């Protein structure tokens, strides 16, 4: 578990940003003795959200939309792969 404050210091972001992500259910946090902690397993996703927010100025609503669309793109890419495989077999 990583203290949210330490994470924010390292990445030079406000704690309120982490809290906004939690409120939008983009990440989960744990509170221990009134201090916010983040599970290490969530770090890759959280770092990606920080990069998009800091590098591109995207707000939390935008991040939500981006994640949703990226998930849809992945599903569609998988569907395309399947269709290509089927087409290849019919052409053989």
């Amino acid at each position, binding site marked *: 578990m990583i203290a949210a404050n330490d994470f924010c210091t390292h990445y*030079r972001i406000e704690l309120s940003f982490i809290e906004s992500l939690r409120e939008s259910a983009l990440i989960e946090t744990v509170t221990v003795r009134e201090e916010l902690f983040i599970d290490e397993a969530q770090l*890759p996703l959280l*770092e*990606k959200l920080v*990069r*998009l927010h800091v*590098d*591109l*100025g995207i707000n939390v609503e935008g991040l939500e939309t*981006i994640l949703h669309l990226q998930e849809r793109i992945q599903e569609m*890419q*998988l569907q395309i*792969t*399947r269709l*290509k*495989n*089927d087409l290849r*077999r019919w052409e053989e």
Partner: protein
Amino acid sequence: MEFIDYYKILGVNKDATADDIKKAYRKLARKHHPDLNPNDKEAQKTFQQINEANEVLSDPEKRKKYDQYGRDWQHSDMFEQQRRSQQQRRHYQDSEAYTGGGEGEDFSSFFESMFGESGFQGRRTRFRGADYQAELHLELADVMKTDKRTLTVNGKNIRITIPAGVENGQVIKIKGHGAPGSNGGPAGDLYITFQVADTAPFRRSGFDLHTKVAVDLYTAILGGEVLVDTLDGKVKLKVNPETQPGTTVRLKGKGVPVYKKDGEYGDLYVTYDVSLPKNLSDEQRELFRQLSRLK
């Protein structure tokens, strides 16, 4: 070393206002950001270039220096003077490194040679490492259950999980196993493309399998049983009387595991390939003639 035109990279004129530069940077950064273009090396390279251009042109002092010295950077005395007054990370043996002889130096080294570290205000841009690509060849039997396998990529052993039901051509991402990042940036990712070959006598379609089984004429007409291969052994199928050639039956749950859905399986479709008898004896031929008179 080649002169790099930051204005051209951002697509702005030399008299662009700070606002123009900011807008141009934002537009390009959103288009080429690595997190929005996974698996795209060109996008990552372009994003680095855009960032460096913005770092210089968005800072009035740096932009002034770049405008003043940028074109004439080949004059080594100016750079010697800058170099002595800056703290460098690297040691340059030859002042001609600044006069165009340095082939193979990358974008960032030009930037550092102009401004070093002392003139750099604010957060230093961290760059994500490049992504690696790899292929893994599998047989159909290999995707029937989730399994772990050790791969060697660029000399490093990586233990990966191959999910059951993975498709031919499907790509998975292993976070952080690409090239290391620079300036404390995160490592890139490893993308593995699965090449899953069909295994005779099965043809895969999504999570379903298709196969053909030979049925002799007598079984097709009178009914009986036939043995069919599945991926987990043989199954005895009942053949109904008067089964037509090309009839397809579905064996539920005998296909491939559905990707990321534990306990769910596709189906196996078995097509009956009715074969006609050959090398009939005289008696058999006579019996067929009798049959034909009865139709």
